[in-house]
């Protein structure tokens, strides 16, 4: 069969868009926002659009609790998607931050006079891109959904166009994002050249076989003729392709040598969007990176150099992020460097993931990979919940940027100060903060690392988090200190005299903040609950 007949004889087997029904709710919600805005006045749409957006997000999150997506062994929509833990539990984590963003946005829309329809529809589109990126199984699909997410986030960062700072942040984010996606595309091109395919599952087969298999296995007279390896993998293309792709993803993940835009973007952008950029987009991009690594790690030649590269980036991110965060005077810049450091911790998990296929085999390998994925996901969930709490609390504080706004916060706004303190303790996540998710996430992640022989890296990671205790806890100390000078005190946005309505979005924000501070403790005490939830969602209750 020649390639042309191949194409003409191609029979699509799994074009069932109903598989993506739960995520299509987001899409419908986004379009509904636009249509609703077109037929109503500004006040009405400002009031009801957040409800539509939050409703779509909540419905999607609820549907994540049902086992709708196909099991991880199957791909769907012609192999373009494959859902493992990141499709269900990961989608929950991603959508949680988006839900928080939707509840904070109404006050911002009102205060800064932003176009409501565009804000909420772009939020939903970004959520759509993020959840699909986490389950993408084909490189081009992944690139397109990544662009859906990124384009929405570029615009949302700079949506307040009268503010010069936010526009500048938008510009920087856009230019470096486009630069990164060019790297990503060339990387995909070289991987395509090496393996003749862009589908990750087929790519994994190619890497397992050590070359591109052109002829298929045939059975003649009861004798099976083995498939022949026609063209060996060209290591140059593979490494070049992977290197370029990894650089592109490092930009998106703000890993250390490619992080320079992050502090500026975090400082200039509006807080709810920055919260999503720091959490959801990172979770989704990290899921994609893990899937690529999973496909490639079956090739023995690949393992050692890539572990070295990923480990280097992880160490540089942890050290650089934590050291640079020490000297920051701006809260959001500090959070930016802290998120760079957290990317470093995540990459430790990715390293273990690459190393696995060469250590174990068969059933054991499957189990170990699931365990590592769950540890990473637990860590990501912890980071997301904690960041949502800290950014959400920060959005309540006027002059949220400057550290001095937090001086003596406990006496003016005790709830916010306590929430922020919980978040900070969870972000430290080492030593004397055991019952928080931050500690448990790190514990599980580093336990996997030590189990598979990355002791030195785990030690560096623990030391780096010990350094991070200084700046997180100094903020806590600042909040619990009595104000020295009353004229320096910054007015609080949250201390309004008006009574809080039960169903307003302000109260919903509070509820989510409260829920996330409870979640930090619940998941910290019972991390196995989260893990078993993931197992039952993805693999069904039979396991």
């Amino acid at each position, binding site marked *: 069969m020649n390639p042309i007949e191949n194409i003409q004889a191609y029979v699509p087997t799994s074009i069932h868009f109903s598989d993506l029904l739960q995520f299509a709710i987001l899409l419908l919600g986004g379009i509904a926002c636009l249509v609703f805005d077109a037929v109503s006045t500004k006040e009405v749409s400002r009031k009801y659009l957040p409800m539509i957006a939050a409703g779509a997000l909540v419905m999607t999150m609820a549907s994540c609790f049902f086992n709708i997506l196909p099991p991880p062994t199957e791909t769907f929509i012609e192999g373009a998607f494959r859902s493992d833990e990141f499709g269900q539990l990961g989608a929950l984590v991603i959508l949680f931050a988006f839900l928080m963003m939707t509840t904070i946005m109404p006050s911002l829309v009102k205060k800064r006079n932003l176009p409501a329809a565009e804000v909420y529809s772009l939020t939903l589109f970004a959520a759509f891109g993020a959840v699909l990126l986490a389950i993408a199984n084909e490189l081009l699909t992944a690139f*397109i959904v990544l662009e859906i997410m990124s384009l929405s986030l570029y615009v949302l960062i700079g949506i307040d166009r009268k503010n*010069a700072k936010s526009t500048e942040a938008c510009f920087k984010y856009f*230019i470096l994002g486009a630069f990164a996606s060019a790297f990503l595309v060339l990387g995909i091109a070289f991987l395509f050249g090496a393996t003749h395919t*862009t589908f990750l599952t087929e790519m994994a087969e190619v890497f397992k076989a050590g070359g591109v298999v052109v002829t298929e296995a045939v059975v003649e007279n009861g004798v099976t003729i083995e498939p022949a390896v026609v063209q060996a993998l060209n290591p140059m293309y593979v490494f070049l392709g992977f290197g370029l792709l990894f650089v592109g993803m490092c930009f998106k993940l703000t890993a250390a040598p490619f992080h320079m835009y992050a502090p500026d973007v975090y400082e200039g952008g509006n807080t709810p969007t920055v919260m999503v950029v720091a959490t959801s987009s990172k979770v989704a991009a990290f899921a994609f990176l893990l899937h690529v690594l999973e496909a490639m790690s079956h090739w023995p030649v690949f393992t050692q150099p890539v572990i070295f590269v990923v480990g280097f980036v992880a160490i540089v991110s942890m050290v650089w992020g934590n050291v640079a965060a020490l000297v920051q005077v701006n809260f959001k810049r500090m959070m930016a460097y802290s998120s760079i450091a957290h990317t470093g911790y995540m990459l430790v998990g990715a390293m273990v993931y690459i190393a696995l296929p060469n250590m174990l085999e068969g059933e054991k390998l499957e189990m170990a990979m699931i365990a590592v994925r769950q540890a990473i996901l637990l860590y990501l969930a912890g980071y997301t919940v904690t960041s949502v709490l800290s950014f959400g609390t920060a959005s309540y504080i006027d002059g949220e940027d400057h550290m001095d706004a937090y001086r003596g916060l406990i006496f003016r706004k005790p709830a916010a100060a306590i929430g922020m303190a919980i978040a900070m303790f969870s972000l430290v996540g080492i030593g004397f903060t055991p019952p928080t998710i931050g500690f448990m996430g790190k514990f599980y992640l580093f336990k996997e690392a030590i189990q598979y022989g990355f002791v030195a890296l785990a030690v560096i990671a623990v030391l780096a988090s010990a350094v991070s205790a200084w700046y997180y806890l100094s903020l806590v100390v600042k909040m619990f200190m009595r104000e020295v000078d009353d004229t320096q005190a910054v007015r609080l946005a949250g201390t309004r005299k008006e009574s809080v309505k039960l169903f307003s979005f302000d109260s919903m924000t509070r509820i989510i903040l409260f829920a996330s501070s409870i979640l930090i403790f619940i998941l910290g005490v019972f991390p196995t609950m989260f893990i078993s939830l993931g197992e039952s969602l993805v693999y069904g209750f039979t396991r």
Partner: protein
Amino acid sequence: MGESIFEANLILSLFLFTVGILGVMWKRNAISLFMSVELMLNAANLAFVTFAFQHGIIDGGILVLFIMTVAAAEAGVGLAIFIALFRVRRHLRVDEHDMLHG
């Protein structure tokens, strides 16, 4: 002639990509900067078509079409962002955008 074209095209693609990186590093005007990014995307397209030609896979053409679409979408949003930036700052010189510093 296939082989020599193949190698030369890959080198040409890498060359265009490097020129794009240099442009992003050296240019000061935001629009020139973004043009360099477009050049990098073109380099990727060239690599795709070259690989498709070399291996006799038609898929390369499809991939290029999608990447062009993405480039067009990116260009649309990007130029709109430049216009917004220009309204606020009255210029597009990258070096002087330094309000955000730690």
